[in-house]
């Protein structure tokens, strides 16, 4: 199935001679640093391979911010467009994925600023007694609402910086060092934000009766 819809154009705006300037190797076989290098030299094919590799990391993070596939589709597209424009500035000693997720996080933050969506901090909700909770069955066991869904809703209610820390750790699986690069903060701040997010979620699980014990 041929899906080439595009005449490659290099960074100087000239059309690339596909046969002359094209990547000699199948981009699928290349490691990220080599792909990035090729993309920086103007190979759109190499850039598309990077898109293929990381589209779910970007899309997933966008989706968890906006909660809707179509919005996440558009937002993730904007991320890759920004990445394409900024590719020349990417330093190849850094991890491409981390750089891309930083763009994603920043784009998602901007999205919310523009949309002026009100995110109710979970601690606010807890104080008012409006913390989210699932409907429990008569024996108190979580029946009506799946636990993971409840946790996701609680995560969505966290403040933006705490939510991002949690998502980068639990959904994207980043190390603390990588999280610090994405969030552009120190590792100490990473740990602090992650801990805060987890404490809030623990309080929620206690309120739900899913765990016993007392929050500290």
């Amino acid at each position, binding site marked *: 199935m041929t899906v080439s819809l*595009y005449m490659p154009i290099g960074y100087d705006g000239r059309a690339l001679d596909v046969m002359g300037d094209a990547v000699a190797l199948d981009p699928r076989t290349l490691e990220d640093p080599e792909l990035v290098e090729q993309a920086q030299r103007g190979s759109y094919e190499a850039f598309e391979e990077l*898109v293929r590799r990381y*589209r779910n990391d970007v899309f997933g993070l966008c989706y*968890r911010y906006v909660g809707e596939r179509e919005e996440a589709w558009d937002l993730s*597209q904007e991320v890759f467009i920004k990445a394409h424009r900024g590719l020349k500035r990417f330093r190849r000693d850094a991890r491409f994925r981390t750089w891309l997720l930083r763009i994603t996080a920043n784009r998602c933050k901007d999205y919310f600023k523009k949309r002026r969506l009100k995110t109710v901090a979970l601690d606010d909700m807890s104080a008012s007694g409006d913390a989210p909770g699932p409907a429990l069955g008569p024996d108190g066991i979580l029946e009506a609402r799946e*636990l*993971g869904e409840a946790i996701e809703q609680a995560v969505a209610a966290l403040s933006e910086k705490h939510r991002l820390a949690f998502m980068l750790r639990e959904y994207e699986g980043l190390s603390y060092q990588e999280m610090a690069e994405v969030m552009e903060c120190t590792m100490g701040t990473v740990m602090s934000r992650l*801990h805060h997010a987890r404490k809030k979620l623990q309080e929620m699980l206690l309120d739900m009766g899913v765990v016993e014990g007392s929050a500290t």
Partner: protein
Amino acid sequence: MTMKNCPTEETIGRWFDGEAADADVDRHVANCTRCGEYAETLRMTRAALAERPAVRIENSQMPAYLNDLRGGIHRRRMWGRVWAGVSLAAAAVVAATALLTVVTQGPTAVQAHSVLEAHSDITGATTETIEYDNGTMTVWLNLPEDDMQ
């Protein structure tokens, strides 16, 4: 049993995330009720989220995704660039004359295409539908000679 000298929850979090292997924390969590509960909360949360359906762009959606992306990248490139490539005059008249060949249809085993509607928003342009000897149907845009678009 809740032990004394509990590590901070941040420390337990680091241990849980594999950021700081610590045999002391291992032992403590195994034996301290409170810290064990906290670690269990972390474990439950992670396990519950792992059960959630994946949010992804499937391979079958990639052609459309990449297509949208290419269009988006090129639209960005258009801004600020002087578009000086396309001439919308001259050959239109020649093309219109050369292509004005109408053929009566022959017997066909398969129902042919139909053009239900065709128009253009370009001032002065016309459209025509042509069916060739070999059954190829073409909808053609005839541009005005002095298209000032």
